[in-house]
């Protein structure tokens, strides 16, 4: 897929270090923000409790604030650890998915994630999906590959923030908002990270995580976002279980569908679908006992493929049928059995989901079990849940109470849960803001170019002069470019690999410089001892769309003239035998308006992907701007 993959190694030390640094910086800021919020809250609370009296004008307002605060604190008190105030099913979803989001955030902080998510996770997932899915996913993946550090860090903090928000939420509006945030982020992950959970690709199976683990996060978030009154009656539980029943029945049919390779342990000596899946999991980096267990299970499936699939189909169908009945007694046993079955699949087929350094979540079984368990708990509410009040003050009441002059009183009277929820939201904003800012920039982050080149060398040396001929046959000397910043490189006009990419980077650099482009000369010098006439530089310019770029100069000369320039700039050029292209080192130099070399940059374009090309252009334009500032 074009654009999605930067082509750089997920283990690239520059990118890993930058990712770690970004997480450390943002983590420190998050910590400071949390401490600050706590201090403000504690100070306001202390001030409010110790205030001797209030003036008549503020007293009425304080009373209004107390109404709200009392309501909030009462709610908070009731909902401590899912106490009598909060429905058990809702509490299970809130805490369970809060923990899962935090775990996902921590997994997202693995070193490979920033550079590797598109190539290790997104691309393989999308590979078998239809073209329109790949196109859509590629759009998201391209944004990631352009800004891997910001995207990686944003994913960490957004997920940790949503998880914390869910956990501390308790009752009232905060957890409902957290549920809505869970739906929004979950859908983004499901579409762009899981390619719609692979539902449009062949090989879909409940065993391996269909229809995508994050879709359960979305469903749970939607349930948490419901008004608390919805959890007071068994109706919600019936709906959740009916949905689960339909899902399980559908998955049973899918699993039983002939011709998909699940009924055979091996097909003509090759592993069947399930055997192949388990075998691929065996190769994941993991503790030895786990790989040994999987290897044994793989052998078992290979020998008893039909029986294993029959058991899976029957269990799924029976679970689906029982959930559809909505009968609490039956459902109770089905839930316990379903949990055990899900755990078995989680270990034996999904291999816990998060091992190997590139796992982004624990896959689908845990969230699925949480969801139908919550459905059962909602089906059988305890008496105090049914008798409980609604979610306290309405939104309109809360909005009426919110006035700027009331802010101090509201802060002082806010519950610890509310302060913690605000802190969680702050963590989300902290992660999302740099990514949003980066996304607004259509160019890639220069970190990619730095990762390829390992940094540039700052210099202040007189640039060796030259006298060559441009593509139009006119003489050009370095002196004739005095007053302009010169971005210079060495290109082979008949090169099949790097040189056209470097030329595109130079062209993009000119575009990025905008109005300052007129003060910059983009210069390439021929780096081929044989194919060096103006006919070739002109053909190269036409090929790369450079013929109309006014400040583009592709210079050539006699072999002795070129040889002198190559030597002076430390460029080695030689023809290789047996059909190989002419070899030369990729180099770019930045010469300021006074004729001094200010930067020397390795110009090897690396994988030459859209993101690395853009990254080099950004880096070169930054150097050009610095040199312009010195001129």
């Amino acid at each position: 897929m074009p654009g999605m993959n930067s082509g750089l190694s997920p283990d690239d030390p520059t990118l890993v270090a930058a990712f770690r640094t970004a997480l450390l910086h943002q983590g420190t800021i998050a910590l400071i923000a949390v401490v600050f919020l706590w201090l403000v809250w504690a100070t306001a609370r202390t001030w409010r409790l110790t205030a001797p009296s209030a003036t008549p004008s503020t007293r009425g307002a304080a009373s209004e604030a107390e109404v709200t605060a009392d309501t909030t604190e009462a709610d908070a008190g009731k909902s401590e650890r899912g106490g009598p105030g909060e429905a058990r099913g809702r509490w299970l979803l809130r805490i369970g998915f809060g923990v899962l989001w935090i775990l996902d955030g921590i997994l997202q902080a693995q070193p490979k994630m920033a550079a590797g998510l598109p190539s290790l996770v997104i691309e393989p997932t999308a590979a078998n999906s239809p073209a329109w899915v790949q196109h859509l996913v590629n759009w998201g993946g391209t944004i990631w590959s352009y800004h891997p550090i910001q995207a990686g860090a944003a994913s960490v903090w957004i997920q940790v923030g949503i998880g914390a928000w869910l956990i501390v939420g308790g009752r009232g509006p905060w957890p409902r908002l957290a549920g809505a945030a869970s739906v929004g982020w979950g859908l983004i992950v499901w579409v762009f990270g899981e390619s719609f959970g692979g539902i449009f690709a062949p090989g879909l199976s409940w065993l391996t995580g269909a229809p995508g683990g994050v879709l359960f996060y979305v469903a749970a978030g939607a349930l948490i976002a419901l008004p608390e009154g919805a959890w007071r009656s068994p109706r919600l539980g019936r709906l959740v279980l009916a949905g689960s029943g339909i899902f399980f029945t559908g998955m049973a049919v899918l699993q039983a569908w002939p011709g998909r390779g699940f009924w055979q342990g091996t097909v003509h000596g090759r592993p069947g679908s399930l055997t192949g899946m388990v075998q691929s999991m065996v190769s994941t980096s993991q503790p030895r006992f786990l790989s040994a267990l999987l290897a044994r299970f793989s052998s078992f499936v290979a020998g008893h493929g039909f029986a294993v699939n029959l058991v899976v189909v029957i269990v799924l169908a029976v679970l689906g049928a029982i959930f559809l009945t909505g009968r609490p007694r039956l459902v109770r046993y089905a839930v316990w059995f379903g949990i055990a079955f899900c755990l078995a699949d989680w270990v034996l087929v999904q291999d816990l989901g998060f091992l190997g350094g590139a796992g982004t979540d624990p896959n689908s079984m845990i969230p699925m079990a949480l969801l139908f368990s919550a459905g059962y708990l909602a089906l059988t509410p305890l008496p105090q849940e049914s008798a409980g009040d609604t979610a306290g003050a309405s939104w309109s009441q809360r909005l009426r109470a919110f006035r700027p002059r009331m802010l101090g009183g509201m802060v002082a009277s806010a519950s610890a849960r509310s302060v913690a929820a605000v802190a969680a939201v702050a963590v989300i904003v902290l992660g999302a803001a740099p990514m949003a800012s980066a996304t607004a920039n259509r160019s890639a982050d220069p970190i990619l170019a730095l990762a390829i080149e390992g940094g540039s060398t700052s210099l202040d040396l007189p640039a060796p002069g030259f006298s060559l001929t441009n593509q139009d046959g006119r003489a050009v000397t370095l002196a004739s470019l005095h007053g302009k910043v010169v971005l210079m490189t060495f290109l082979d006009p008949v090169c099949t690999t790097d040189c056209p990419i470097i030329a595109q980077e130079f062209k993009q650099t000119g575009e990025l410089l905008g109005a300052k482009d007129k003060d910059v000369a983009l210069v390439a010098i021929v780096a081929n001892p044989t194919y060096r006439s103006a006919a070739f530089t002109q053909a190269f310019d036409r090929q790369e769309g450079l013929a109309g770029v006014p400040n583009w100069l592709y210079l050539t000369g006699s072999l002795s003239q070129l040889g002198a320039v190559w030597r002076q700039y430390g460029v080695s050029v030689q023809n290789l035998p047996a059909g190989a292209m002419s070899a030369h080192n990729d180099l770019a130099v930045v010469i300021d308006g006074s004729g001094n070399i200010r930067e020397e940059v390795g110009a090897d374009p690396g994988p030459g992907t859209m993101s690395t090309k853009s990254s080099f252009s950004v880096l070169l334009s930054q150097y050009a701007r610095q040199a312009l500032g010195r001129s």
Partner: protein
Amino acid sequence: MISGFSGWARAALALACAGLVAGCGSGSPRASGSGSRNGSVTPSASAVAVPLSTSLVTAQGTWAIAVMGGSAASANNFWQLFVRPAGTSQWSLATPPGVADNGGLVAAGTPASLVIGFRPSQNLAFSPLATSTDAGRNWTPGLLDADLGNESGALAVDPSGQALALLQDGTIQTAPTAGAAGAGQWSELTTRQALAASTPGRTCGLQALDAVSFGPDKTPMVAGSCERPGVAGVFTDTRGTWQSAGLALPAAYRGDRAQVLGLAATSGGNVALLLAGDSLLGAWSNGTHWSVSAPVAVGAVRASGFGTGGSMWLLLSGGHAETISGTGGSWQALPAVPAGTATLAPGPGGSYDALAVAGSKLTVWRLARGAWAQVQRINVPIEYGSSS
């Protein structure tokens, strides 16, 4: 139980959902397209690609082109040009330097020179040229600012230096002199569409163009494949008007579609290799009249080429090889060629050489007394990874 839904209704809904999911998820993977750039020709109703592996003879010597190295997918396939200078029996590497040739090499010769065209590959979109007049010791660069066609007959030069190039898109360009060709001064002669719209093109139902050459009076000639059965698509440019070159298929092939796989100039005429139905035919022109050989059964054609005096050879699948000496000759099967044979070439004394490739090693086998004998090994210094 959910109010308003019966158990049967729910079950039906569940099955419908499952069916929908199954329908969405069980599609077969898309078939991937495949080119046949380095592949072979097999009989087909439609036009087939012509292999680039070939050999030709000029006054300087005998030249052979074969692909060596590793896989094309990793850009480790490097096409090589070998030369056996006239009057010698040893081959040597003569690949022109300065351009990566992973896209393939196309050769055209005159008695005095050999022109090599580099087919574009990866990020290169035009075709550098190289000309040698000293049996490959020195090369002069040239330029075709376009995508040279993927056929061994895509380039032609005549002794005066006039050149023809068949492009990938079916356009034919011409350069009036060797100097103009070197400087990239080519102009359009015609296109496949224009030729197809001409009277002989319509008669043929021209599908694709496969080779260019010059007639005995230095007129440009073009050959291709015809949709209409029984018609051979060889055309000649007579003062700006394209006409049929007059090549008629024998009556036995009137119901078969024909494709010209190769076309070359000989002293006083032309020679062509035709695929008609399931048969391969040789055809020779003395400038006014064409004669056609008896057929030879087709396997997949892995390489083909022309020798002196209108002779031609075929390297077929399964180690089979056939040669024919020229007008009036008949196809002669050669002994099964050695493993790895990539191309054949006329050898010294009227024999044939088989050039066998294994990675970066070339082994030359010579046909002597009815058997292939190894006569030479060349280690080609391939720079693996230099094009990736």
